[in-house]
């Protein structure tokens, strides 16, 4: 509508981040950087048995140490209820929630049993080592596929089975020409952010407010829970999110330690600070991913999938934490991916084991199910002697069928694939890698003795989880725009993205927009940052609020300039005439006028906006990997990696690319290096970063990213979809396929992580039995 000279829009540009300056200059405020005078330091005492009856805890030696203020055990916090579920509550799970301390049974190494509060963190740790546990060991359950055992009298270690499906699976399987069966497993790993967890609680007696600093991800929900658990009104609990050193789904959920520091601050009337060390993080922060799948497909002779059935064993660890059945639910819901799958049935057995409890980790349920589904497609292709790309094409949902209602639900929404041209994106990815030429060159290299191959994997992601988001935007007397949201930042750059959207809708420079997040005392409600929701939900709410604010500013300026509203616009922070003539007035002046004016109904220049959406939206992508296996050592090198991803509408392409590359490298970690291992007594073996190996710069390829906007979402006016998780989603599947291809062994990879030792054995066997056919050509293994 505006005809005046508009600056270039901010949305769509790879602009530098607003977040960077303090982080580059050492001015960050991460949890460990926050301190209050008089604070006590909390050190948690943790079970060193995976399963046992906790007979007694002797804290006398710890209490006797100078500088130790108190030592708590379960009896000190008996009134605090177990930590409740935030998402995907399912009947039967309640009894498996975790209390702040173990009471009479310990169920995993790392479970909190006591806490020392001391005037110095070194002293607290010294004292914690003096706490003596008297534990009678009990047998351990370490495998989700073993028969369930006893959790407590009357309850087994299979709290629930999540079932999803549609269509007549039994008839399909009994009449199909071909049945293909396979077993796949994904190893236990997790987000492991570089900053460990931390929490600092402080009770302000003057205002009767309990403060928790070091919050992240879902501060409003956590505030409500803490208030409930400690018997306070929610308005008397404030959570503060500072800088957050990565979340990935793991950080920010409500953990026992968060509740403990709050209870301690309230009772001891001193601030209480807790910062975990790396060993604690590796055994006590949420693990993820570990599942076993027994899957089968009913297929016709052309490779069309007629039906899919999956029996899944989900290793939940010792308790069910805030995510309840989220990961099992998403696994089952997203398994069909971008393919038609006329009949489907999944049963996810949630199994408790004596290991660290589990939660969501970047692309939860999808990293796992994409691995299974794409591997299964490769098995089908190999069985039918079909090209692995071709079989995917035949089963893909076409763009003409969008929106495609999948008769499944998850996270309180019905799955309806909103938009997408999967075949076109596949083509773009294949063209970008010059697929035919690549196949030829790989065949030549194999003929010369190298073990090298390429793999493709497709996936559908989910993003924009609602149902609701709201923001308030105000302009101060200096023209600075402040967007107050109930979202959170885990380092992804949301302040910049929201500022860009606000800037375009309001008519200001994005550098003059401050975005507030994670402060529960600045806005009543908030959904936080997870499920790749912020750009979509907070972004749209921001656009609505900014548009409303622009209209308000123009309305007010119209009076001040004695100019009709219809010929006014806001450009670069000023209300101007669209024909460029006449006087203009800065937004700062408009704000000042509204604060000084005596006869104004609503003083100040601010507006609210909200966005509601009951459906998630569905971005999608293609991963292509080229991998080389060393014949002698089995070591895997990723020579090339490409991700093609349709994001609907890209607000800041540079940030999207950053998310995809970052996710991809985490995916590589989970595919090749990372695993939480336990010995036969349930003792964790991956307790330092020298055991739990994460990729360094040397292990990772340069990831090529193609960002597409061919399928904007019809579910929000800007067409936005989220980008936080697509980089991780298909890495296991793509690399596994590449390794199958490199070795010339169908289903060489059925388990993650892929171990060089296993590949060496496969290479050895294949060479002996002559299966390693060097003259094998393009992408079909037979």
């Amino acid at each position, binding site marked *: 509508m505006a005809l005046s000279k508009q600056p270039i829009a901010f949305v769509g540009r790879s602009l*530098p981040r607003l977040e*960077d300056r303090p982080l580059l*200059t050492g001015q*960050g405020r991460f949890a*460990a*950087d926050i301190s209050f005078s008089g604070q006590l330091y909390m050190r948690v005492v943790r079970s060193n048995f995976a399963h046992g009856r906790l007979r007694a805890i002797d804290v006398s030696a710890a209490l006797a140490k100078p500088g130790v203020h108190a030592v708590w055990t379960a009896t000190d916090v008996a009134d605090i209820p177990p930590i409740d579920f935030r998402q995907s509550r399912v009947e039967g799970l309640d009894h498996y929630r975790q209390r702040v301390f173990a009471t009479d049974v310990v169920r995993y190494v790392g479970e909190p049993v006591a806490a020392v509060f001391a005037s110095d963190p070194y002293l607290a740790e010294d004292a914690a080592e003096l706490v003596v546990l008297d534990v009678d060991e009990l047998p351990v359950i370490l495998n989700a596929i073993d028969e369930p055992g006893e959790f407590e009298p009357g309850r087994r270690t299979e709290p629930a089975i999540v079932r999803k499906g549609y269509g007549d699976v039994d008839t399909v399987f009994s009449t199909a020409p071909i049945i293909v069966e396979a077993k796949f497993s994904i190893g236990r790993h997790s987000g492991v952010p*570089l900053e460990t967890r931390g929490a600092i609680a402080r009770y302000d007696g003057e205002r009767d407010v309990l403060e928790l600093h070091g919050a992240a991800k879902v501060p409003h929900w956590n505030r409500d829970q803490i208030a409930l658990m400690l018997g306070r009104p929610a308005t008397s609990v404030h959570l503060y999110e500072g800088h957050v050193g990565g979340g990935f789904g793991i950080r920010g959920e409500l953990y026992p330690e968060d509740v403990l520091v709050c209870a301690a601050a309230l009772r001891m009337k001193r601030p209480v600070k807790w910062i975990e060390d790396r060993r604690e993080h590796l055994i006590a922060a949420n693990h993820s991913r570990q599942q076993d799948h027994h899957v089968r497909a009913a297929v016709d002779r052309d490779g069309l999938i007629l039906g899919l059935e999956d029996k899944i064993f989900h290793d939940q660890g010792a308790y069910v934490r805030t995510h309840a059945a989220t990961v099992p639910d998403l696994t089952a819901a997203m398994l069909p991916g971008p393919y038609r799958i006329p009949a489907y049935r999944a049963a996810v057995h949630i199994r408790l084991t004596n290991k660290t409890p589990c939660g969501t980790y970047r692309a939860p349920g999808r990293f796992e199910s994409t691995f299974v589904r794409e591997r299964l497609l490769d098995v089908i292709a190999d069985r039918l002697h079909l090209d692995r790309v071709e079989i995917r094409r035949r089963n893909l949902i076409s763009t003409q069928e969008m929106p495609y209602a999948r008769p499944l639900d998850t996270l309180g929404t019905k799955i309806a694939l909103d938009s997408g041209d999967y075949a076109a994106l596949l083509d773009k990815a294949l063209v970008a890698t010059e697929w035919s030429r690549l196949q030829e060159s790989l065949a030549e290299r194999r003929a010369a003795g190298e073990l090298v191959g390429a793999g493709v994997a497709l996936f559908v992601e989910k993003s924009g989880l609602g149902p609701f988001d709201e923001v308030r935007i105000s302009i101060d007397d200096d023209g600075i725009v402040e967007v107050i949201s109930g979202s959170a930042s885990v380092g992804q750059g949301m302040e910049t993205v929201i500022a860009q959207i606000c800037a375009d809708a309001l008519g200001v420079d994005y550098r003059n927009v401050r975005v507030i997040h994670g402060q529960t005392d600045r806005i009543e409600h908030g959904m936080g940052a997870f499920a790749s929701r912020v750009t979509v939900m907070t972004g749209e709410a921001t656009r609505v609020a900014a548009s409303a604010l622009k209209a308000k500013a123009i309305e007010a300026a119209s009076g001040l300039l004695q100019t009709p509203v219809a010929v006014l616009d806001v450009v670069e922070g000023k209300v101007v005439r669209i024909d460029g003539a006449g006087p203009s007035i800065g937004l700062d002046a408009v704000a000042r006028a509204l604060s000084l004016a005596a006869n104004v109904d609503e003083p100040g220049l601010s507006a609210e906006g909200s966005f509601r959406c009951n459906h998630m939206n569905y971005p999608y992508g293609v991963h292509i990997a080229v991998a080389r296996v060393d014949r002698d050592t089995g070591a895997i090198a990723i020579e090339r990696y490409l991700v093609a991803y349709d994001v609907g509408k890209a607000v800041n392409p540079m940030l999207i690319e950053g998310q995809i*590359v970052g996710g991809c490298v985490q995916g590589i970690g989970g595919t090749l290096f990372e695993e939480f291992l336990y010995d036969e007594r349930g003792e964790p073996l991956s307790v330092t970063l020298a055991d739990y190996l*994460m990729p360094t710069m040397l292990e990772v390829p*340069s990831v090529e990213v193609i960002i597409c906007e061919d399928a904007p979402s019809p579910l929000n006016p800007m067409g936005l979809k989220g980008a936080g998780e697509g980089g991780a989603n298909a890495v296991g599947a793509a690399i596994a396929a590449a390794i199958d291809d490199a070795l010339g062994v169908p289903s060489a990879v059925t388990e993650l992580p892929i171990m060089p030792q296993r590949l060496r054995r496969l290479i050895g066997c294949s060479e002996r039995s002559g299966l390693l056919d060097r003259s094998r050509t393009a992408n079909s293994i037979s």
Partner: protein
Amino acid sequence: MSERAEITLTINGRTYVISVESRRTLVDAIRDDCGQTGTHIGCEHGVCGACTVLVEGEPVRSCLMFAVQADGKNIRTVEGLAKGDELNVLQRAFMENHGLQCGFCTPGFLMLITGVLERKPNISDEHLVEVLSSNLCRCTGYQNILKAARWAAAEMRRH
């Protein structure tokens, strides 16, 4: 409880006289005794490199050094890179190239790169990657960190 020693840490040109136990790590002394919290702790066992500072110009894992070992030594941390409000070449390189997301590993990388480029301004790309593999990042996937380091190296060689 071990005896305390009085030591002097010189950080970014400023001296701090502090009293520490012999077991106190350098990173804890920098952060808590001297109030310079820009240097971060990621593992305390010398793997992640988030705690990297320059001691006498050399990149050091300050979680693996005791404060008493740094007595009288010249220490540089991330807080000393900018000149007032003006970011230096390397910091600008990170900003222009989206070389940070959560920012937790960033101070460690900045000091590592500063240390290596000051000593070897003509370092080969291969060697640079090898040195940078000393530090972990969980957010960026390293691509843009390398881009930023190359960009800064080129800029620094130009001047």
